[in-house]
């Protein structure tokens, strides 16, 4: 078969899966949050509220699509599509299993030598969606949301980059498949400390990059209505929501891939069923599920940062800690490696 055709088929399958998971993540999130707050949550549509996403989808398609008359039409229209397109494409470089494990095909869309940089590049273009959407709406609150999001994303990209640098120095490659195959924790026990620190700084920066609580200032509803989303309705609003959840999934997948062995399972399961730790998909999905739960848990637990706290935390603490971890890892590699 034509390799291009196979790649296209895999990409289509991945997009549909991500969007399907998005639909159910909205229900799961609302149910978990409800449980944490002693409420019931959506449980009317279908058994356990399982048909809720379908009802929501029909609702958002048939709702009136309001276009602000003073909006910059073209950019207002393009912004949600930029968001969702780049959110979906960022996921393509993440490997989900050993080579040839997807019915004889490789379980990834692209095996790039610059894999991690590709993910960073795609997400950094995705920022334009939020940024331009808020500006094109021609509204104070939306513009404030946009400005907040761009300042936040640029600030936390530093922490993210330096945390990733620790892993890259240890692995010696940017290829996500090779990073998983190497397992960065097995290189040297001396590197466990910088790796552990980098894991936490990466996770925190990742949450900030996907605008989740406690970093959800771009859409802080008590202060600026809904930030960049204020003037969006109907399907365009839904596209922004999709992009946010897909970005969350990408963040979860990247953290798992860089720090927790990606698609590989823990070694001890091989004692029960030989070869179980090499099974494709399930381990990555399990790890992503844990992180998704963590994101929801944090939303149910933590209050939002104040704006100056957000900036101080990003520039004064997170960045320096991530930089320190990277320096420590470098020193260990040079002097003890």
């Amino acid at each position, binding site marked *: 078969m034509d390799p291009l055709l196979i790649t296209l088929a895999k990409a289509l399958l991945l997009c549909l899966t991500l969007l399907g998971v998005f639909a159910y993540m909205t229900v799961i999130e609302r149910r978990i949050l409800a449980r944490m707050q002693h409420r019931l949550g959506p449980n009317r549509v279908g058994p356990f509220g399982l048909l809720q996403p379908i009802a929501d989808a029909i609702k958002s398609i048939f709702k009136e699509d309001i276009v602000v008359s003073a909006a910059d039409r073209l*950019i207002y229209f393009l912004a949600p599509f930029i968001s969702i397109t780049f959110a979906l494409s960022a996921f393509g470089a993440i490997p989900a299993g050993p080579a040839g494990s997807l019915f004889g095909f490789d379980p990834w869309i692209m095996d790039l*030598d610059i894999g991690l*940089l*590709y993910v*960073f590049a795609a997400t950094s*273009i995705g920022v334009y969606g939020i940024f331009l959407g808020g500006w094109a709406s021609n509204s104070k609150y939306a513009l404030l949301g946009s400005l907040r999001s761009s300042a936040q994303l640029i600030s936390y990209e530093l922490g993210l980059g330096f945390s990733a640098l620790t892993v890259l120095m240890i692995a010696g490659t*940017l290829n996500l498949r090779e990073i998983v195959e190497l397992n960065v924790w097995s290189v040297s026990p001396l590197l466990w400390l910088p790796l552990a620190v980098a894991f936490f700084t990466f996770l925190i920066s990742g949450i900030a990059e996907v605008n989740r609580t406690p970093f959800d200032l771009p859409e802080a509803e008590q202060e600026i209505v809904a930030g960049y989303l204020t003037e969006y309705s109907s399907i365009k609003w839904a596209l922004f929501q999709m992009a946010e959840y897909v970005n969350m999934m990408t963040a979860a997948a990247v953290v798992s891939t860089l720090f927790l062995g990606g698609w590989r399972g823990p070694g001890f399961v091989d004692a029960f069923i030989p070869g179980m730790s090499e099974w494709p998909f399930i381990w990555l999905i399990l790890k992503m599920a844990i992180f998704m739960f963590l994101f929801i848990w944090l939303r149910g637990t933590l209050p939002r940062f104040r704006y100056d706290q957000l900036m101080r935390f990003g520039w004064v603490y997170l960045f320096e800690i991530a930089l320190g971890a990277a320096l420590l890892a470098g020193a260990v590699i040079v002097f003890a490696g």
Partner: protein
Amino acid sequence: MATFLILAVVMIVGAVGVITLKQPVHAALALVGTLLTLAVTYVTLEAHFLAAIQVIVYAGAIMVLFLFVIMLLNIQGETPPAVLAWFRPLAYIVAVVAAAAIATTAFMEPRSLPDEVQIATALQGGGVEPIADVLFSDFLLAFQLVGVLLLTGIIGAVSLVQRKVVAVQEARADGATKELEHA
């Protein structure tokens, strides 16, 4: 070649948009488009690392900052008052001369493209290593100097802002004492 021609046309249209569009945000977006097309061109040349860096640094960081400033100051597409009336015709002349110079060089001394096999071996799949190899050996001095240059720029920017803040604070303090004296 067809791919390159399409990309070249998109890039030129984008570049013309940067200088002709009235609305600053549109102009900045045209520049983003140009930079992204350039990144795609790098991908077609198998220079993946360069393409990724092009997107992350230029489109992802620098242009976001440009747009941030444009939006923060809420600059609209207003034409500045013509202080320098003689400037416009001069600018046209300079542009025409420069375009003519480039065109003459391009057509008088046409250069053939380097052999694709040769490029592929030099780039080794467009990864990080071939670039790092030369950057940290042959061009180490230049690389370090660029670092110093950037640091100088940052220090300059900080000192400019700092002076302004101090001046404002002193002015405020003066105002406060005067108010006190007045009372």
